[in-house]
């Protein structure tokens, strides 16, 4: 097992075959401390990937590194992101087809989003496609066939922005990158447009806050679906969701199930980008639903941002209704969504783009919703587009969900690691860790043949950083306003990270 710690990184290889799982080797790359100042949501990392005897990972300061998995020696190390432009790497690389696909983070620093493919052997960059800008930058060519009319046009990645706004327009590819071997396509989401102040990014802001399907060979776009044009509240659509092939109202289809931060579960046809269904899985008041015919998100004008005043009680508030990985049930019928039910007040302020500084332009004050329940685990019936059950949680769920057999595992910010029944949501078992949990639980079969569930406890990320000593919760806007909503987040009893592995019966 390989464990990657947050920045400044250290990579540990644990030998699971021996009792106590001692460290086999460790790797500490050289680090550029400046990257800490550029990590929007704490110095997190989605983890390393192992394939073909190598372990690949991204470092926050913009390097993609390949190591020999057996010895921990470095195979190659390439600089893929530029800190000067505000780019950092927090996502996990994807390995497919002998290529490594990586995407950047840095929306909040005005970095343009991109996805790049590297040669797995050499680290040599094969192609790089941006989320904003003229068509050749974005990888839009004759093969680009978006489903909806409003995505057709020349150079929309520049034309749907104020002059030169796209040059620091965000749209990062910080989430998971999906590879679909069936259709031979890559799917990835794009982050929110920069800056947060919607007034400074007039227009639809293509191609931010949407979903891309790309050809893994040359990165050319196949289709794009903009979930949230002119994203008012900096929610983005960084996580593409889950590729599931199943029946959809009687016909077999290649689906992409995408629970979006805007509070809707989108069901898309993976082949062409058509939105088949969009229904809210949590309290949503900023929008009034999705027009399936045009793919348009209907906004509530009462929650529109207006110059010089505050937009109050926007639900869902930053960082969105769900920001972590959902998991499908084994039969593909249900989706278990970790939900943040926070709302927010947001006030747009004028901001200048100054290289290397945060490009935000908003005061944000997150709030508990009216009913006080800030989180939930929602079991979502995909086809019926409605929740089956909901487990309310006092804190937003920041970590991913693991569905294993009839049991759903998830961790909470206040340190509980829970297992609930997939059919009813009944809590089966819980464990209190020394720190809050924001990591995804994983399951593996140990060398002893027993199944294990493991989770890394350690508070961090957008939510978890509120508990850090460098945040002063008396400022309601601290940690992008989450300090206000999470005043009562307990400080972890053990501030360091702990890896817990539980044997399953």
């Amino acid at each position, binding site marked *: 097992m390989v464990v990657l710690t947050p920045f400044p990184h250290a990579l540990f290889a644990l030998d699971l075959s021996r009792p106590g799982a001692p460290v086999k080797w460790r790797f500490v790359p050289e680090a550029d*401390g*400046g*990257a*800490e*100042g*550029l*990590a*929007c949501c*704490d110095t997190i990392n989605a983890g390393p990937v192992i394939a073909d005897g190598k372990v690949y990972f991204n470092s926050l300061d913009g390097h993609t590194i390949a190591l020999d998995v057996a010895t921990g020696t470095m195979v190659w190390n390439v600089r893929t992101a530029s800190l000067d432009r505000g780019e950092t790497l927090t996502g996990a690389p994807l390995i497919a087809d002998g290529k490594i696909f990586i995407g950047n983070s840095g929306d*909040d620093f005005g970095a343009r989003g991109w996805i790049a493919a590297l040669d797995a052997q050499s680290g040599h960059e094969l192609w790089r496609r941006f989320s904003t800008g003229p068509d050749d930058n974005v990888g839009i060519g004759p093969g680009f066939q978006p489903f909806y009319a409003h995505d057709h046009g020349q150079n929309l990645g520049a034309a749907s922005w104020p002059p030169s706004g796209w040059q620091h327009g965000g749209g990062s590819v910080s989430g998971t990158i999906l590879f679909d071997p069936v259709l031979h396509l890559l799917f990835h989401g794009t982050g929110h447009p920069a800056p947060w102040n919607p007034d400074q990014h007039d227009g639809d802001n293509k191609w931010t806050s949407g979903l891309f399907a790309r050809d893994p060979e040359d990165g050319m776009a196949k289709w794009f679906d903009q979930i949230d044009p002119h994203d008012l509240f900096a929610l983005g659509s960084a996580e593409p969701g889950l590729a599931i092939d199943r029946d959809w109202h009687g016909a077999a289809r290649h689906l992409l199930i995408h629970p979006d931060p805007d509070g809707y579960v989108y069901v898309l046809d993976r082949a062409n980008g058509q939105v088949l269904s969009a229904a809210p899985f949590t309290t949503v008041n900023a929008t009034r639903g999705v027009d399936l015919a045009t793919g348009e998100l209907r906004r509530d004008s009462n929650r529109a941002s207006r110059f010089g005043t*505050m937009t109050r009680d926007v639900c869902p508030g930053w960082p969105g209704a769900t920001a972590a990985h959902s998991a499908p049930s084994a039969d593909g019928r249900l989706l278990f969504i970790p939900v943040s039910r926070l709302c927010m*007040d947001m*006030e747009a*302020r004028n*901001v*200048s783009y*100054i290289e*290397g*500084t*945060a*490009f*935000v332009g908003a*005061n944000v*004050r997150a709030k508990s919703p009216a009913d006080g329940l800030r989180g939930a685990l929602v079991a979502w019936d995909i086809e019926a587009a409605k929740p089956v059950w909901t487990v309310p949680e006092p804190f937003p769920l920041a970590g991913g969900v693991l569905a294993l057999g009839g049991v759903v595992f998830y961790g909470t910010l206040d340190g509980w690691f829970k297992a609930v029944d997939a059919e009813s949501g009944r809590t089966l078992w819980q464990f209190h860790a020394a720190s809050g949990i924001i990591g995804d639980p994983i399951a593996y079969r140990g060398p002893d043949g027993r199944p294990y569930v493991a989770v890394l406890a350690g508070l961090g990320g957008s939510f978890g*950083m509120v508990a850090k*000593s*460098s*945040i*002063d*919760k*008396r*400022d*309601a*806007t*601290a*940690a*992008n306003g989450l*300090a206000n909503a999470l005043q009562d987040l307990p400080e972890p009893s053990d*501030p360091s990270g702990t890896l817990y592995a539980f044997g399953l019966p």
Partner: protein
Amino acid sequence: MTRRLLILAGLLALAACKREQREVRLDPPALDALDQVALMPNGIGGAPPDVLPALGRPYETNAYQLSQGKRLYGWFNCTGCHANGGGNVGPALMEGWWRYGPDVQSIFASIRDGRPHGMPAFKDKLTTEQIWQLAGYVQTIGTYAAKTAAPTRNDEMQSRPSESRGPAGADIAPPSR
């Protein structure tokens, strides 16, 4: 007795007058001199430029300079990382524990030259005088005793008690690291 009282009142008034002065233009030699900060080798503490006391330490005590600093704080994206003093990507400023010390010259150096772990250098973004204004203001965010000259709330979202009202206070423990 009366005379002494009068003198005292006069002195107080003069001090007030300094506090309220709106000096909008410093002579270039004074500006150059303001750049001469001698920091300790560890980058913490040191001597402020001689010209600062000569000017009456306006950046720490003058209401106008402090409020100019507050404007710069908003204008130059300080809020993006430090929020309104509570911290975000960057550490909180209002708790009164600065990693590089509470002296205004350390704060000045942090802003001018940047610091490891992500604090960018603002040398070429702000002028020396602006950096002093900003440093004076930043110090105000985390001082333990409220300054009457400190700026008060902005006409924007309420996020925290204003600088002139909300000293860090002794109830805040030093960060546990």
